[in-house]
């Protein structure tokens, strides 16, 4: 599995999402909880807009000076006995990790939740090589048992309910108890604990890498990441190349924005931090430590009008307020990065070819931009994508192109425009009944399939205004 999660056409995926009543109910109620929870958190903190501003400035500065901070991070990790590998592609990253595992003759890997490892298809690659991979995050583990991709970047199994989880546990792990969350959690704890203790290599993602100290920080509520970071002698971190902060001070600010935006908490139950490998005078840490920094298309975004997309801290605030996501769910986006940030990022990382529809799957309502804690202008970027699809990729439908050419002529010529205001009612007369259109022609049909369309006014405004002026203006 890589960034794409299936191959069916977009509208088919949309329909499937719309028809999935359970998923929609689950997403809708989760969004409701996130909405109020986040507002409460922002209010409690106070000056939310100032914090967002600060968040944006930190991310902007870091990404603008990414080369400097990556060098600093790399130097610090090396100084602390770690190995640093810069992977240009997903393949380079997975190959490096496969070699680490091979050198250890390892058979089992314990992992913490990580979107970048989903992006590079790490689990799949390792499993092909005969290595068993155990996800330590409960949501990810459920999905792993079911071979199901994540539908959300923070709560990956959001689309599943407890009955479905009970079935999965029963089928895959011989679970016999009820679908009570406590019993399900207790069962998975028993199952996972055994797995953790027998793993040879730990792999984690990274929320923020701190350049000044070479420290990797992870944000979790289950504490599961520590199973990957403390139980094995060999530890690998996989991070997207932009997931970096200059110092602990910036980390503290961003982590507060992240946890409030992602899970409506001041802080999560666990913030895990680890640095390099165990040095001679230290009592803990891995003997063998590897930091894999993944580019996989990110450096191509630098210096473009999409650079701010690299500011993302993967909080999913945009997903949690997105009405489109609420109705079609994460899988319809056909990317492990769904929702507004996914629609922006996926074509950048994976090309337009398989993702032409994504930038259009938005009403441009701007809820995402408003929610983003680091102020990424997400809906503006969707418009920019559309512009590229039209002008550079030349992937817009011919009928649409002709219509827009017509629009340009119509709207830049008052004579043509005025004529159309006079003719509009007549042109739609055949479809009009009682001043409303229930079954419109051409592209209007898509509208009238589900709602009425108004008939044009009997007299256009400008015609009325002209008459009024002739008769002496205001009464």
């Amino acid at each position, binding site marked *: 599995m890589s960034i794409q999660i299936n191959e069916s056409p977009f509208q088919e995926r*949309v329909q499937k999402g719309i028809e999935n009543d359970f998923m929609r109910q689950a997403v809708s109620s989760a969004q409701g909880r996130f909405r109020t929870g986040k507002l409460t958190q922002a209010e409690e903190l106070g000056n939310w807009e100032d914090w967002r501003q600060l968040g944006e400035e930190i991310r902007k500065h870091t990404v603008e000076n990414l080369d400097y901070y990556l060098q600093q991070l790399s130097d610090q990790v090396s100084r602390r006995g770690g190995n640093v590998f810069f992977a240009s592609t997903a393949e380079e990253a997975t190959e490096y990790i496969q070699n680490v595992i091979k050198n250890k003759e390892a058979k089992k890997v314990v992992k913490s939740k990580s979107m970048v490892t989903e992006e590079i298809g790490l689990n799949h690659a390792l499993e092909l090589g005969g290595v068993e991979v155990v996800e330590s995050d409960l949501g990810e583990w459920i999905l792993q048992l079911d071979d199901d991709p994540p539908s959300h970047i923070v709560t990956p199994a959001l689309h599943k309910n407890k009955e479905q989880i009970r079935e999965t546990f029963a089928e895959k792990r011989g679970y016999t108890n009820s679908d009570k969350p406590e019993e399900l959690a207790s069962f998975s704890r028993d199952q996972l604990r055994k797995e953790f203790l027998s793993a040879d290599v730990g792999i984690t993602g990274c929320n923020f890498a701190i350049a000044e100290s070479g420290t990797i920080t992870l944000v979790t509520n289950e504490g599961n990441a520590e199973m990957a970071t403390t139980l094995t002698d060999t530890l690998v971190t996989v991070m997207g190349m932009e997931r970096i902060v200059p110092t602990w001070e910036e980390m503290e600010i961003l982590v507060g924005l992240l946890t409030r935006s992602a899970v409506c908490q001041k802080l999560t139950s666990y913030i895990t931090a680890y640095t390099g490998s165990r040095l001679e005078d230290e009592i803990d840490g891995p003997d063998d430590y590897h930091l894999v920094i993944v580019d996989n298309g990110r450096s191509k975004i630098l210096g473009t009008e999409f650079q701010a997309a690299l500011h993302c801290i993967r909080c999913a605030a945009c997903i949690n307020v997105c009405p489109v996501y609420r109705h079609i769910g994460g899988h319809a986006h056909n990317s492990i990065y769904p929702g507004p940030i996914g629609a922006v990022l996926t074509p950048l990382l994976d090309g337009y070819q398989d993702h032409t529809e994504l930038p259009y799957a938005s009403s441009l309502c701007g809820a995402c931009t408003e929610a983003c804690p680091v102020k990424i202008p997400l809906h503006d970027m969707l418009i920019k*994508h559309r512009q590229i699809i039209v002008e550079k990729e030349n992937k817009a439908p011919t009928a649409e192109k002709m219509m827009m050419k017509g629009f340009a002529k119509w709207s830049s010529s008052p004579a043509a425009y005025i004529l159309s205001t006079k003719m509009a009612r007549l042109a739609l007369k055949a479809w009009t009944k009682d001043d409303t259109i229930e079954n419109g022609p051409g592209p209007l049909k898509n509208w009238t399939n589900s709602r009425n369309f108004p008939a044009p006014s009997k007299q256009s*405004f400008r015609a009325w205004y002209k008459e009024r002026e002739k008769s002496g203006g*205001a009464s």
Partner: protein
Amino acid sequence: MKVSLFITCLCDIFSANVGKDTVEILERVGCNVDFPELQTCCGQPAYNSGYVKEAKQSMKQMIRAFKDSDYVVGPSGSCVGMLKEYPNLFKGDKEWEEDAKELADKSYELTQFLVDVVGIVDVGSTFNGRITYHPSCHMTRILGVNDAPILLLKQIEGIEFIELPVKEDCCGFGGTFSVKNAAISEEMVKEKSQHVTETKAEYLVGGDMGCLMNIGGRMQREGKKVEVVHITEILNTTD
């Protein structure tokens, strides 16, 4: 105060009454209204679909149309929001940059103009009824107009104002989105219609004809009795 009316193509063609009400409201509060005939469309349908070159042709037409105006006032948060974007789009274009900025600076959405520029909240409406209000996305998030329409509505004596649940949610209009992604748009407007019904209001009021056509068209299809009206109709009711 000399005000040029930016009627928007939607109102010009589909909702002439919104234009008439706008003229009468502005005149009632003492403005001297004119209607520059060279105006067409703000260009948003093309711009939002990715056709920037095509959009710029209508934008230039709008810049020409309002060249001599002191204030440009329109009954739409979305279309005025588009005018406000012009300076970004013509940045670096020596011929148009300055004029684009000038137009953006002097443009206002109607309720914003009444409250912030004219400085009035009582425009003499005698409307009676139970209303709820949908704050359209571009009015609030793009243009930043949140309070003005509410202030104008809430001070009308005969109005019972009921808050719309999850009012900030998009109605699913989104211009070409409503036909290009009709299935998603339909789910969004169904949800909005449901929320409006929950309020038991007699009227759903809004400040953008696009959204109102969408919500109104859906509620009509569902056979619901709620009247979907532009805020100008409420403000210009004077018995």
